[in-house]
C-alpha cells in the first residue's frame, strides 16, 4: 500500500525501538512502543476511534450528536480529531492544571473545553462530566474509564502488534490511568505466554490531585475491576515527577523526544530491569515531547521543573 484512504487508517501499527543503551542491567533489553506515531499524537487515538465506532455500531451515537468526555488531555485530543472527521461536536471536561499545549490542541481540533477544579484532578473531571451528561441526556458520554472498547482496542491492536514485533517479551510496562492499555495488552500477552509479567506505573497521588472528602469518594475504573485488574497486574509501582523528568531527559540521548509519562514508563522499566536482572521489557511511550515544551522539562533547572510538574497533570 502506498497511501491511505483516511487519516483514521493511520491509527495503530506504531513502531517499536530498542533503548537498551539506557538499561541499567546488561542482560535486560528494553524496547519502547512509540505511540505518538498515531495521527493526533498519542496512544489515545486508538481508544478514541474504537469507542466512537463501537457507539456508532450499537446506536448509542447518531450522526451529528454531541459528545462529552472527561480527559486530562490525550483522550480528548484523539476524540476531537476523530469527531472532527466524523462530524460530531465534542465537549471535553478537563482539570484547569493541564499543560497549555493540551488546551491549544483541543482548540485546533475544534473541541469545546469545560474546566473542572484543578485540586480535584482527573476524578473531578469525571464527576463533572457525569453530572453534565446527566443534565443533558441528548449528549453521548463515552466514558473511557468504563468503556470496554478502551481495553478492547489494546487487546485487538496494541497487544498483537507487540507480540508480532517482539514475541520474546518477558515484561510489559505501562502507565496506569484508565487501565485500558494494561488490561488489554496485559490480557493479550498473558494469553499468549502466561509467564509475561505486567507492571503498572502510577504517578504519585499528591496533594494536588487529592480532592477527596472521604475514602468512599475513591474511584476504581470499572474497566480495571471488570477485567480482573487486581489479578492481571504483577506489580504496581509509583514513579514521582523528578524520576520521570530525569528519564525523559535520558531518552533524548537515544534520540527519543517523548512526553513526561514516557519518562515515567522508562523509569519503571529501569526499576523493573534492576529487579529482574534478565529479560526483555516492552514499555508503552504514550505521547511525544512537543506538548510539554512549555514545562521546560528538558532545559529548565531540575528542581524547578519537578516542582511545576507536581502542580500539573502529566499522565
Amino acid at each position, binding site marked *: 500500500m502506498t497511501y491511505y484512504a483516511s487519516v483514521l487508517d493511520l491509527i495503530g501499527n506504531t513502531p517499536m525501538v530498542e533503548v537498551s543503551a539506557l538499561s541499567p542491567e546488561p542482560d535486560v533489553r528494553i524496547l519502547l512502543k512509540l505511540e505518538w506515531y498515531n495521527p493526533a499524537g*498519542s*496512544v*489515545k487515538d486508538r481508544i478514541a476511534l474504537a469507542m466512537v465506532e463501537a457507539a456508532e455500531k450499537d446506536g448509542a451515537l447518531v450522526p451529528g450528536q454531541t459528545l462529552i468526555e*472527561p*480527559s*486530562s*488531555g*490525550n*483522550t480528548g485530543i484523539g476524540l476531537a480529531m476523530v469527531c472532527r472527521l466524523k462530524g460530531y461536536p465534542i465537549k471535553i471536561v478537563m482539570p484547569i492544571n493541564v499543560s497549555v499545549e493540551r488546551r491549544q490542541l483541543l482548540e485546533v481540533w475544534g473541541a469545546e473545553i469545560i474546566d473542572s477544579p484543578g485540586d480535584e*484532578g*482527573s*476524578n473531578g*473531571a*469525571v464527576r463533572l462530566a457525569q453530572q453534565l451528561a446527566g443534565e443533558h441526556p441528548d449528549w453521548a458520554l463515552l466514558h*473511557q*474509564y468504563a468503556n470496554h472498547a478502551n481495553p478492547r482496542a489494546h487487546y485487538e491492536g496494541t497487544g498483537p502488534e507487540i507480540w508480532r514485533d517482539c514475541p520474546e517479551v518477558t515484561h510489559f510496562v505501562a*502507565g*496506569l*490511568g*484508565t*487501565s485500558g492499555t494494561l488490561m488489554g495488552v496485559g490480557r493479550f500477552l498473558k494469553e499468549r505466554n502466561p509467564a509475561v509479567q505486567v507492571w*503498572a506505573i*502510577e*504517578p504519585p*497521588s499528591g*496533594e494536588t*490531585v*487529592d480532592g*477527596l*472528602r*472521604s*475514602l*468512599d*469518594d*475513591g*474511584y*476504581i*475504573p470499572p474497566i480495571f475491576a471488570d477485567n480482573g485488574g*487486581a489479578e492481571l*497486574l*504483577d*506489580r*504496581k*509501582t*509509583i*514513579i514521582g515527577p523528578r524520576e520521570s523528568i530525569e528519564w525523559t531527559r535520558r531518552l533524548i540521548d537515544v534520540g527519543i523526544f517523548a512526553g513526561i*509519562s514516557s519518562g515515567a514508563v522508562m523509569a519503571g522499566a529501569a526499576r523493573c530491569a534492576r529487579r529482574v536482572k534478565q529479560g526483555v521489557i516492552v514499555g508503552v511511550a*504514550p505521547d511525544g515531547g512537543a506538548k510539554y515544551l512549555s514545562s521546560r522539562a528538558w532545559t529548565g533547572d531540575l528542581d524547578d521543573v519537578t516542582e511545576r510538574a507536581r502542580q500539573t*497533570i*502529566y*499522565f
Partner: protein
Amino acid sequence: MTVEVRLPTVLRQHAGGQSVVRAEGATVGEVLEGLVRAYPGLGGQVLAQDGTALHRFVNVYLNDDDVRYLERLDTKVSDEDVVSILPAVAGGAG
C-alpha cells in the same frame, strides 16, 4: 521494626491532624493493626471491618510498591521503610 506511616489528607483527622506517624510491626498487616490501636478512629477506614483485608478504596504502598501486588498484609517491612496509605483513585487519565 518501627516504620514511618504516611496518611492521606482524608485520614489525618483521625490521627490528631498528623500526616506522618510511626508504627511497629514485622509485616504491613501488623503495622496497620498497630496504627489502628494507636488511633482507633482509623479502624474500619484502613482495614475492612473484619480486619483481615484492606479497605476497598485504600491503597497501601511499601516505599513505592502497592502491597496488593506484593504479599498484601503479609508483606514484610524493615526499619527505614515507609508505608504510605493513599485513597484508591484512577492513576491519571490521559
